[in-house]
C-alpha cells in the first residue's frame, strides 16, 4: 500500500542563549515556579541578521543530509510558520531558492503552533493521493522573538526561535507508515493571543509606539487548559483509526509549551513519562518548530526504532490542534 515514512530530520537552534531566570531578573519577576512547572529553562534568540528562512534552510539542509536526498529530488516544500520572512511571498519560495530545490512546488501553511503537524499531514496526503509526488520537505520555523515586547512579563520569557524539518518520502510498506490523524479547531478563541497585524489592523507609528505589532494576549480572556482536555482524546481517536490504543504507542511528542501539561496528559493516558520526550529545557518554546525539534532529538538519542508507533500532537493559537500517528519505518 502506498504510504509515507520520514527519511531524515534536522533542526536549527540559534547560538544566543539566555537562562529564563535571567529574563525574569531583567523584568524584576521571580520565574522559578514557572520554570519548575513548565520546564522552559532557556530562551534561544536568533541573531539580528537572521530571519525565519535562515532557520528553515539550516534545518532543511540537515534533514536532507540525514535522509541522503538531494534538494533537486524534492517534489514539494511546505513551510509551516506564523512568523514568516515577508507578508508576501511565502517563506517556502525563499527556502526553495536557497536550497536550489528547483523541481519542488511550494507553499506555506499557517495554523499557528499546530502548523508543522498539519503540514506533515498535508505532505502525507499529497504523496498518498498523487503518484507524481515522491519526496517532500516539511519545515516548521519559528522566529517569534522578532515580535516580542521585551517588557511583557508573560510573553517575553516564553518564546524562543528555532526550526525543525523532516523529509517525507513515499513507501510501499505493508507493515508501517501513516496510521491516522485527528484535527480539531475552535475559532471562538481567535482574539485571545496573536500578532494582530494584517489587513484588519495595519501598523502605524502610533500603533507601533503602543507595541501593537508584538505578540499580544487579551488581558480579560484567559485561555482555558484546552490541551489537557483535548490531547488525550485526540491521541486515542487517532490511534483508534489504526485499531490501536495508547498502550500501543511507543513515543508521544507534544507541543513543548508546558512540561506539567504533558505530564498530566501522559498520566491521563496511563502512560509513563519514558514514552514522551521533551526539549523545551534546552531549546525553549519554539511554536510550529517544537514538535519536529523534539522528534529530531528523540531520534538522535536513539529513542525511536523501526516498528515503533510515534504520535505527534500539537496546539496552536486561535485555536487549532493536530494529531498524527505513524509506525516508524
Amino acid at each position, binding site marked *: 500500500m502506498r504510504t509515507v515514512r520520514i527519511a531524515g530530520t534536522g533542526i536549527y537552534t540559534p547560538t544566543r542563549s539566555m537562562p529564563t531566570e535571567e529574563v525574569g531578573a531583567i523584568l524584576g519577576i521571580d520565574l522559578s515556579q514557572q520554570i519548575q512547572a513548565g520546564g522552559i529553562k532557556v530562551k534561544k534568540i536568533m541573531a539580528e541578521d537572521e*530571519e525565519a528562512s535562515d532557520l528553515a534552510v539550516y534545518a532543511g539542509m540537515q534533514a536532507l543530509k540525514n535522509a541522503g536526498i538531494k534538494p533537486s529530488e524534492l517534489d*514539494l516544500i511546505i513551510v509551516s510558520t*506564523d512568523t514568516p*520572512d515577508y507578508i508576501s511571498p511565502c517563506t517556502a*519560495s525563499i527556502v*526553495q531558492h536557497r536550497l536550489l530545490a528547483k523541481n519542488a512546488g511550494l507553499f506555506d*501553511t499557517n495554523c499557528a503552533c499546530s502548523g508543522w503537524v498539519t503540514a506533515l499531514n498535508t505532505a502525507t496526503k499529497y504523496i*498518498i493521493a498523487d503518484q507524481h509526488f515522491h519526496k517532500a520537505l516539511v519545515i516548521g520555523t519559528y522566529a517569534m522573538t522578532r515580535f516580542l515586547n521585551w517588557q511583557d512579563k508573560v510573553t517575553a520569557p516564553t518564546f524562543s526561535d528555532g526550526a525543525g524539518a523532516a523529509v517525507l518520502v513515499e513507501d510501499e510498506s505493508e507493515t508501517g507508515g501513516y496510521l491516522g490523524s485527528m484535527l480539531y479547531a*475552535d475559532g471562538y478563541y481567535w482574539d485571545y493571543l496573536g500578532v494582530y497585524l494584517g489587513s484588519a489592523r495595519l501598523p502605524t507609528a502610533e500603533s507601533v509606539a503602543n507595541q501593537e505589532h508584538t505578540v499580544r494576549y487579551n488581558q480579560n480572556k484567559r485561555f482555558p487548559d484546552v490541551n489537557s482536555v483535548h490531547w488525550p482524546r485526540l491521541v486515542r481517536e487517532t490511534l483508534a483509526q489504526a485499531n490501536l490504543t495508547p498502550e500501543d504507542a511507543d513515543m508521544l511528542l507534544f507541543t513543548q509549551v508546558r512540561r506539567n501539561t504533558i505530564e498530566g496528559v501522559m498520566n491521563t493516558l496511563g502512560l509513563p513519562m519514558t514514552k514522551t520526550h521533551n526539549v523545551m529545557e534546552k531549546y525553549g518554546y519554539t511554536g510550529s518548530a517544537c514538535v519536529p525539534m523534539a522528534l529530531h532529538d528523540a531520534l538522535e538519542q536513539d529513542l525511536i526504532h523501526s516498528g515503533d508507533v510515534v504520535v505527534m500532537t500539537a496546539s496552536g493559537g486561535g485555536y487549532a490542534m493536530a494529531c498524527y500517528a505513524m509506525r516508524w519505518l
Partner: protein
Amino acid sequence: MSHIAGMGLKVPDRILTNEYFSEYFKEDLNGFLEGTVGQKERHWLADDESVVDLCLPAAHEAMAEAGIAAKDLSMVVVASDTHEYISPPTSVVVQGKLGATNAMIFDLSASCASFVTALVTVDSWFRSHPDFKYALLIGEYGMTKYLDKDDKYTASLFADGAAAFVIENTGESIIASKFIADGTYHDYLGVFGGGTKYPINDDTLAKGLHKLRILKKYDQNPNLVAWPGLVTSLMNKVGEPLSAIDLILFTQINLLVIKKVLEILGIPESKSHWIMDRYGYTGSACIPMALYDARKQGKVKPGDLVVLVASGAGQAMGAVALRL
C-alpha cells in the same frame, strides 16, 4: 471527483474607476489599464473593513447553494497572502465566526497561486479522509490595504475581493494538477515588511517596506513564458488534447498576456473568461471569482472540463484540471 457544491462571491462596496486614477495621478491611465491589463473598475475595502468581512458573506452564499450548515464542514481553508492578522490564521477566525465547530483549519499561502494550490490540497486531504464530507475553501485578497496609494502602477492595478467554494468529497480525485516554482524570484514583488526580515519598526515604516513593493523587474513576462508549457504538460497528465478543455481560466493580471497565451495554445478566446474589467486584479481570489462569474453567465455547465491556471509572486505556479 471533488465536486464544487456551492460558490459565493463578495467584493467591497467601494468602486474606483480608471478615471479616478487618471485624475489622481494627473495622467491618462486608461490606455494601460483598459487597453493592456483589461481593467475598467475595481473594488476597494473601506478603512474599517478587512478580509474576513469578505470571507463571511462569500462563505454563506456558497453554503446556501450547497444546502449545508457550517457544522457540516470538515475543513475551513483560507488561501491568500493578505491575511487578517500575522497570527492566528484567517481560517480560524472564519471558523469561529461561522460556528464551523467540526472543521479543521489552516491558511495556505503561495501568493496569487494560493487558491489553486489549496484546491489540490483539499482534494488530497479528501483522498485519505472519506469521513470528510465538505470543505470550505476561500480565496481572498485584501491587497489594497498594503498599497502605497501614491505609487501609480500598483495603486491602480490591485483590488480586493473574495470567493468561496463548498467542495464535496465524492470519493474521486481532481483529474490532474501540476506545480512549478522558482524561488529565485522571491525578492521581486511582495510585501516585504511586517515579517521577520524587516520587522515593523520606525525604519521599516519610514522606508515604506510594509507596503506592496516591486524591488526588481522581470526581464520578460513570466506568465507568457511559462503558462503554455504548464497547460500542455497538465493536459498530457490528463491524457486529453487541448481541444477537450471547455473552460480555461488564468490569473487575471494582464488580459493581453491571457489572449496571447490562448493564441499560442490554439484555444479560442470564447473558451476563456475574464473579470478584471469589473473587479480589477484580485490575486488569490481572482480564479474562483472568475469561475463564479463564468458559471453565472452560463459559460460553463456541470460535467465540463475546466482548467485553472494560477501564478503567484515568489514565484509559484499551479494548474489543475477538474470536471465541474
